[in-house]
């Protein structure tokens, strides 16, 4: 399979064409924005947490390329029902994968479809957009804020 086919795996294209969890969460606990200034794309995340800090609902809106849209779609499916800290672990695995590091493929689920992105340096930020925004939501929530006015940029990814 070529690097290109690795990048655009069927799972990615599927999530891109039929994005999951689009929309808003009316009674959201935290709402945040993330952007990729390299291309101008943006994502808006809304999350509702239950009393145990578990993500009850998560929805996204915004625009972006197929990689970013698929990454967001898979992420929303994956973190729903988990805590922020569990989500953060997944996030770190994605980051490791983007840098070409080894990860536990089993644990990654559909996210493993993003592995091919690591071969395309300019697209890594596309894949990370969802996750850096997720991290912002976590930081805001833990600080007791609702995310109003909070915005993160993929340029702050090292």
């Amino acid at each position, binding site marked *: 399979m*070529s690097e*290109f*086919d690795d*990048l*655009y795996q*069927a799972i990615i*294209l599927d999530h*891109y*064409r039929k994005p999951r969890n689009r929309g808003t969460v009316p009674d959201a606990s935290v709402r945040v924005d993330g952007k990729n200034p*390299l*291309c*101008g*794309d*943006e994502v808006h995340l809304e999350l509702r947490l239950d009393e145990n800090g578990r993500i009850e609902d998560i929805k996204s809106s915004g*625009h*972006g*390329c*197929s*990689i970013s849209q698929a990454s967001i779609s898979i992420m929303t499916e994956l973190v729903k029902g988990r805590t922020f800290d569990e989500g953060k672990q997944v996030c770190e695995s994605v980051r490791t994968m983007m840098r070409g590091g080894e990860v536990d493929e089993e644990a990654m689920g559909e996210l493993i479809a993003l592995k091919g992105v690591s071969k*395309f340096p300019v*697209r890594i930020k*596309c894949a990370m957009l969802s996750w850096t925004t997720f991290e912002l939501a976590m930081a805001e929530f833990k600080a007791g804020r609702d995310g109003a006015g909070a915005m993160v940029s993929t340029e702050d990814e090292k």
Partner: protein
Amino acid sequence: MSYEVEKLRQDFPLLRQTMRGKPLVYLDSAATSQKPRPVLDTLQAYYERWNANVHRGIYEISDLATQHYEAARATVARFIHAAEPAEIVFTRNATEAINLVARAWGDANVKAGDVILLTEMEHHSNLVPWQLLAQRTGARLEFIPLDGQGRLDLAAAEKFFNDRLKLVAVTQMSNVLGTINPVASIIRHAHAVSALVLVDGAQGCAHIATDVQRMDCDFLAFSGHKMCGPTGIGVLYGRKWLLEAMPPFLGGGEMISVVDWRESTWNHTPWKFEAGTPAIAQAIGLGAAVEYLEKIGLDAIHAHEDALVRYAWEQLHDLPGFHPYGPPPDERGGLVAFTLDDLHAHDIAQFLDQQGVAIRAGHHCAMPLHKKLGVAATARASFYLYNTTAEVDALVAALRKALKFFGIETKTVVTV
């Protein structure tokens, strides 16, 4: 003489490369052009035969380096019809040339409340330097708006042409819309209220025969790498008296006349603005690039590109969901920025890369313009003297495949 594009292509070693295993179709010359053999040979000759520091050497190779360096300046002066070589300052690129004016001329001449007039289609390089100047001086930035076709709406800008206006900075040709602007008429307007005009020729000079005296601009900035020259070399043209009246920009060797411990006097223009060891090889390489372009003829190049863009315009319009930005071919140079249905520009470019077709995706260093156009990113194909209609066909075919691949047309995956 007919235009023999296949013969010209032989001059460009990189065009014989493959990309992702496919023949390379290079459609990103608006970002940077490829380099012909005579330019590469000149660089080689410089390093192998004349390499020495310029201006103060008494020995033969230093003298040769100096002569070639100053001859390149004269060649560039001739290319844009400057009154004399002293009006040509070598910089790193168009961006540095514009910054030089914003710092050296701007800091000395612009005051709080003065107006710098730009356009809504400017490249960041002809926008951010003026933002910084405005922050330093308290001057105000205004913008000539665009009409619905991506042309300057000069009537709507009439109100800015008054005695507050100090400078108009306008691109000769937009790197996104392709629009070729009526700079000569803007210049007449500006001069009528004693404002100066800087023309950003980064896209223009490589493609359109440019005559600074006929155009009557005060400053012109452009880059060698976009016109078959090496990277690392750009040009600021300025009227001699303006350059002579300006304080220096960078301080150091070569730009001085007499240096004392705490003060110095300056060399004449253009050396006053060339502090330190210049980009000698690159300036000489740019001279060779100019000679190469002159041999083909700017008018022939422009005609060739015009034919290409008309052909592309037609072919591209057959694609479902094709949406171009900017005016029709009659008023544009050899590039087309577009969106394709709701395919993302970066996905398009990535797919095309796989097909061997190099185009650019993004905001093309014109974020405010894209905001105005209501789109985060566009895809852009740009043509130069070496591109062919067959390459346009390859572009269109690749775009068709992209539509299929991402499932816009058929929602099924095709293999590539």
